[in-house]
C-alpha cells in the first residue's frame, strides 16, 4: 500500500553527508520503550486487586497467575527475535520498528481490554503474546543498523541502544505508579486506563524512532572527521560475512550462546531476588526501604554497565571483555558469602553493583562480538537467534536462585546463609563461560558468504 511506502528500506537510505549521530536516538526511542517490560511487576499487586480494588476479592487473579504475563512476554521476545531476524534484514529497520510499535502499543490496548473485562486470556494474549512479539522485533531492529553506521565503534553504538532497554524500566516504573494514582477511583485500580495511556505513549515514542531511523548507503564508510586515526581504520575493516543459516552451524555461535546464557543466568536470578536477598542476608540491618534502594542501585549499575563495558570492548576487544566478565564475576560471586557473613554491607553492595554492570555489559557487548565473528551482513538475524539464550537463562536463573534457597532452608540452613550455595553455583557457571570464551576462534573460511552481500 502507498501509505506504507515510507517504511520501505529504500526510503530509509541516508543521503551523502548524513550525520550518523542522528541514528542512535532512533534506536534509543525503541529500546527505552520496550525496556518497560522489566517494570511490569509494578502492576502485580493492583492486578491482583482488580475486582476487589482495596483488597483481593473472590475471582481476583492470584500473583502466581499474573506472573505468567511477564514470563510469556519474555518467551515471545526470544521466539520472535529468532523468527523475525531474517525478515528484518530483508525489509530494513523502519518497517521492523513500525511493526514493533504496533505490536507493543497494541499489546497494551488488548491487555487493557483484558483487565477491563477481567478476562485473563485476553491480558495474556495482549501484553504477553502481542507485546512480547513487539519486544523481540523491537530489540533486534536497530542493532545491525547501528553496527553498519559505527563499524569503528560497534560496541559503543549497540551499547547505547541496549542501555536504553536497561533504562526503560527506570522510566516505566515511576511513570506507571503515577498513572495508576491518577486513574485510581473507589471502583477501579486504574490499571486498565494506565495500560491505554502507556500504549499510546509508547506507540508515539517508538514512532519517533520509526521516522528518524536511517541506514547507510551501500559502501558507506565513516569519514576521517568521525573516526580517529589509523588504529580506528584497522577496526573498520569488516570481517568475512557469514549468512545466518551458516552461522548457526558454527561452533562459534554455540560458544557465544553458552556464554550469553551463563552470563545472563548469573545476573537475572539475583536481579529478581535482590530485595529479599539483602534483607535476609543482613537481618535487622537492611529495612524494606533500603532494600528497594539496593534494587534501584542495581538497575543503575545494569544500565551504566551496558554502555561502559560495550564501549570498553571497542578498545580491549570482545574476547578480553568477556574474559573479564567471567573471571571477575567468579571472584565476586565466590567472595559474596564471606562478605555477607562478615556483615560488610558496603562491600556487599559494591560486589553486586559490579556483577550487575557485567550482566548488562554482556547483553550490550554480544552484538559487537557477533559482528566480529560473522560480519555485518546478517548480524541482526544472527543476534535474534542468539537471544534464545536469554529466554533459556530467564527460566534457569530464577529457578536456580529460588530452588537452591528453598532446598537449603528446608535442610535447616539459616536464611542468612541460604544463598551461599547459590553463589558458589553461579561462580561455577561463570568458570564454564570463561572456558567457552577461551575456546573462541575465527570462523572457518568454509562458512563465509561467497556472493555479494545484499
Amino acid at each position, binding site marked *: 500500500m502507498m501509505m506504507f511506502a515510507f517504511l520501505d528500506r529504500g526510503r530509509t537510505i541516508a*543521503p551523502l553527508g548524513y*550525520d550518523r549521530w542522528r541514528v542512535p536516538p532512533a534506536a534509543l526511542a525503541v529500546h527505552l520503550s520496550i525496556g518497560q517490560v522489566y517494570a511490569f511487576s509494578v502492576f502485580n499487586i493492583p492486578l491482583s486487586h482488580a475486582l476487589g480494588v482495596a483488597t483481593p476479592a473472590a475471582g481476583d487473579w492470584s500473583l502466581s497467575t499474573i506472573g505468567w504475563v511477564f514470563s510469556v512476554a519474555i518467551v515471545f521476545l526470544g521466539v520472535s527475535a529468532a523468527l523475525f531476524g531474517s525478515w528484518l534484514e530483508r525489509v530494513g529497520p523502519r518497517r521492523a520498528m513500525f511493526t514493533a510499535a504496533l505490536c507493543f502499543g497494541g499489546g497494551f490496548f488488548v491487555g487493557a481490554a483484558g483487565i477491563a473485562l477481567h478476562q485473563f486470556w485476553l491480558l495474556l494474549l495482549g501484553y504477553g503474546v502481542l507485546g512480547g512479539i513487539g519486544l523481540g522485533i523491537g530489540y533486534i531492529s536497530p542493532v545491525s543498523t547501528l553496527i553498519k553506521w559505527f563499524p569503528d565503534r560497534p560496541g559503543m553504538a549497540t551499547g547505547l541502544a541496549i542501555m536504553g532497554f536497561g533504562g526503560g524500566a527506570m522510566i516505566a516504573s*515511576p511513570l506507571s505508579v503515577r498513572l495508576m494514582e491518577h486513574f485510581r477511583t473507589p471502583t477501579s485500580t486504574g490499571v486498565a486506563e494506565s495500560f491505554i495511556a502507556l500504549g499510546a505513549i509508547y506507540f508515539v515514542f517508538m514512532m519517533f524512532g520509526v521516522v*528518524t531511523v536511517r541506514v547507510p548507503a551501500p559502501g558507506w564508510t565513516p569519514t576521517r572527521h568521525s573516526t580517529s586515526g589509523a588504529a580506528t581504520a584497522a577496526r573498520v575493516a569488516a570481517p568475512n560475512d557469514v549468512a545466518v543459516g551458516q552461522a548457526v552451524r558454527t561452533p562459534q555461535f554455540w560458544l557465544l550462546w553458552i556464554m550469553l546464557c551463563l552470563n545472563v543466568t548469573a545476573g537475572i536470578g539475583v536481579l529478581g531476588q535482590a530485595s529479599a536477598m539483602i534483607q535476609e542476608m543482613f537481618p535487622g540491618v537492611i529495612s524494606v*526501604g*533500603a532494600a528497594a534502594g539496593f534494587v*534501584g*542501585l542495581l538497575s543503575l549499575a545494569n544500565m551504566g554497565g551496558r554502555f561502559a563495558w560495550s564501549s570498553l570492548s571497542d578498545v580491549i576487544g570482545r574476547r578480553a571483555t568477556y574474559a573479564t566478565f567471567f573471571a571477575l564475576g567468579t571472584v565476586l560471586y565466590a567472595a559474596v558469602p564471606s562478605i555477607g557473613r562478615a556483615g560488610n554491607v558496603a562491600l556487599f553492595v559494591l560486589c553486586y553493583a559490579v556483577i550487575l554492570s557485567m550482566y548488562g555489559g554482556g547483553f550490550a557487548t554480544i552484538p559487537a562480538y557477533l559482528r566480529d565473528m560473522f560480519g555485518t551482513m546478517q548480524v541482526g538475524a544472527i543476534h535474534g537467534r542468539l537471544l534464545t539464550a536469554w529466554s533459556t537463562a530467564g527460566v534457569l536463573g530464577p529457578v536456580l536462585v529460588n530452588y537452591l534457597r528453598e532446598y537449603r532452608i528446608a535442610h535447616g540452613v539459616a536464611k542468612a546463609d541460604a544463598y551461599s550455595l547459590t553463589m558458589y553455583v553461579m561462580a561455577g557457571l561463570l568458570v564454564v563461560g570463561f572456558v567457552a570464551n577461551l575456546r573462541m576462534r575465527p570462523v572457518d573460511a568454509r562458512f563465509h558468504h561467497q556472493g555479494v552481500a545484499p
Partner: protein
Amino acid sequence: MSERNAAGQPIALALGWVIVLIPTAWGVWQTIVKSLALFR
C-alpha cells in the same frame, strides 16, 4: 544532501538527543532518589 538540509542537521541532531535524554534523565533521577534509602 542539499545545502538547506545540511544546515538543519545540527538542529535535528540536538532535537533527537533531547527527545530521548529527557525521559532517560528523569528515570535515572527517580532511581537515584530511590537508591538514597540504602545509604540512610
